[in-house]
């Protein structure tokens, strides 16, 4: 790794600190200004002023917002993410991490299937351009992609659990066979996007001079495809992979609600609706950190795959 690159990484990581700080301020104040109120949500029909006051004191909501924020930062510095009000008296960490882990496993499996299918399908379609196989291949995956996930979930549940009676829908852990349907419903529609992107990318590369040169040199078609075309076509793909990766830790709302998977997407929706201040904030910060990290990784990988880009990026600093 060249000194230029490591310097670049350090700069990017340092950038993350003010970014996260800013995000935490915005979200923290936004939450307090939104109309929802966790204490109201806890008390509901048992609302009494004495009752509400004691709860507000307990969670510190009786203090001015900026005091609350300073307190929050102090706790955060000690690794304390706060407490959940939706799952009362569980800490935010207890609520979040097991669910993030569930979603991540599910998401990883799905994304592997998506890219594992999407990249070859895209290359295949690009190479088959001009024949009916190209539109047929892409068309098939596009059709699948056009069906909203929540409809596909119903259709798949119906077909495999009711009609064929092959699977059950109870949740038995991420690695149970009951998860085949949810993971497929999550992975397969996304294949189209990856395949189409890959196809466009390959076609873009096909027109390049160096491919023509390579072919003119009389290299075997297989060599040309694998070493020259695929390699160059994968470059823009890095962005897509990179942008998708931080997302998998957050799961899919529709998959998790349709199949009742105890993942973080379902929890975040509920946390937002509750509202559950500390859990929301923890999720936001975790998500932002992950996102910033992924961006750094994307740029670094760019630099490794295609040194030209790093030159360009460095020039920008």
């Amino acid at each position, binding site marked *: 790794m060249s000194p230029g690159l490591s310097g670049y990484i350090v700069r990017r990581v340092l950038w993350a600190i003010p970014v996260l700080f800013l995000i935490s301020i915005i979200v923290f104040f936004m939450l307090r200004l939104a109309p929802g109120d966790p204490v109201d949500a806890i008390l509901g029909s048992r609302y009494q002023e004495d009752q509400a006051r004691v709860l507000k004191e307990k969670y510190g909501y009786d203090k001015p917002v900026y005091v609350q924020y300073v307190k929050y930062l102090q706790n955060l510095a000690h690794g304390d993410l706060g407490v959940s009000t939706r799952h009362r008296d569980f800490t935010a960490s207890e609520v979040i991490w097991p669910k993030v882990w569930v979603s991540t496993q599910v998401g990883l499996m799905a994304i592997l299937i998506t890219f594992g299918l999407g990249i070859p399908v895209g290359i295949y379609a690009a190479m088959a351009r001009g024949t009916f196989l190209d539109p047929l291949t892409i068309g098939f995956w596009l059709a699948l*992609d056009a069906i909203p996930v929540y*409809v596909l979930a119903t259709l798949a549940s*119906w077909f495999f659990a009711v009609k064929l009676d092959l699977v059950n829908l109870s949740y038995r852990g991420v690695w149970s066979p009951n998860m085949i349907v949810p993971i497929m419903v999550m992975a397969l529609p996304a294949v189209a996007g990856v395949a189409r992107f890959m196809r466009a990318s390959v076609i873009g590369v096909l027109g390049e001079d160096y491919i023509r040169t390579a072919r003119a040199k009389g290299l075997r078609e297989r060599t040309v495809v694998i070493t020259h075309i695929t390699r160059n076509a994968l470059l823009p793909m890095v962005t897509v992979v990179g942008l998708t990766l*931080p997302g998998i830790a957050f799961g899919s709302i529709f998959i998790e609600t349709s199949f009742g998977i105890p993942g973080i997407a379902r929890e975040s929706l509920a946390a937002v609706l509750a509202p559950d201040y500390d859990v929301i904030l923890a999720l*936001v910060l975790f998500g932002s950190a992950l996102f910033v990290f992924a*961006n750094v990784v994307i740029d670094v990988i760019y630099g490794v795959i295609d040194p030209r880009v790093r030159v*360009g990026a460095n*020039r920008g600093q």
Partner: protein
Amino acid sequence: MGSEPGALAATEIVVFEDVQAPARFRTVRQVLKKKVAIIALAYLLLFYAGGLLAPVIAPYGLNDQQLSVEKRLQSPSTDHIFGTDRLGRDLFTRVLYSARTTIIFTVVITLSGGLFLGLGLGLLAGYRGGWIDTAIMRTGEVLSGMPTLLLMLAITAAFRARINGWSFWLEDHTFLGEDSKTLVKFLIISMATVPFAWLGSCRIVRSQVLAIREESYVQAAESMGASTGRILFKHILPGVMPLFLVGLTAGMAGIAGAEVALSYLGLGIDEPAASFGNLIGDVNGTRLFNDYPYLLIVGAGPVILFFFSWNLLGDALVDVFDRRQNQRG
């Protein structure tokens, strides 16, 4: 949050700008040579016509209920070609009005200008580099790190009390009439969506620009003293275009899909106004599908075909562009 491979497409909202007028006409001609594209176009025309003319061609009123055991949940028949729902409302009518909702929404989003951000800022960041690049990309990071869903909720919640007030005003003072409330809700949803939607396409455009501007022909043009505008439009834009168009067309389905999904979650358009999201949410159940399959088929089918058609059309466009680029190159 809640991003997933599928949602990626929805966040890549980009727009197609006309590059050169003659090329545009040639593109249209070439696209029309493709059978698949024609079928897709025909369906889209049908969809748009049906949606825009909904008040004229709908056989029943949007909220005409028939509360009786016999009249509700009727299978498709000559009276009700798509059947009726739980409240005995004609589903064909509701589908037409849902199409109308979808159309208004996509138009509002496109006009709201957020779409230009992806392309414009991507070009700017990629080509100019320097602090502009840094500023754009870091701003994007701040924004994309924010929880879109949470913001949508917060914004809709904050404005919810005023939705009725604004829509009443619009209804009384403009030609919009009944569509006012829908429009106001759309504006609020798009306000919450647009600022977070451009980063994906911006990155893609930027990375393409970065790669292309290092190409020999671009460097040659630069060294020959070609103007920035000329380099951008003549050399860089055509290179960015294919990927960008994928984004645009996927974006179309994605924008419409966002509304359907939000309404499905109950955060978008509320009953008794019609949206495919409500329509699907109403009839979405494994057991219900087993007994009344037509409900989900007529509720989801038209909008699935709408997504599919946009995607096919986009694919055809990409193909034509690429071919021309190859011929030129």
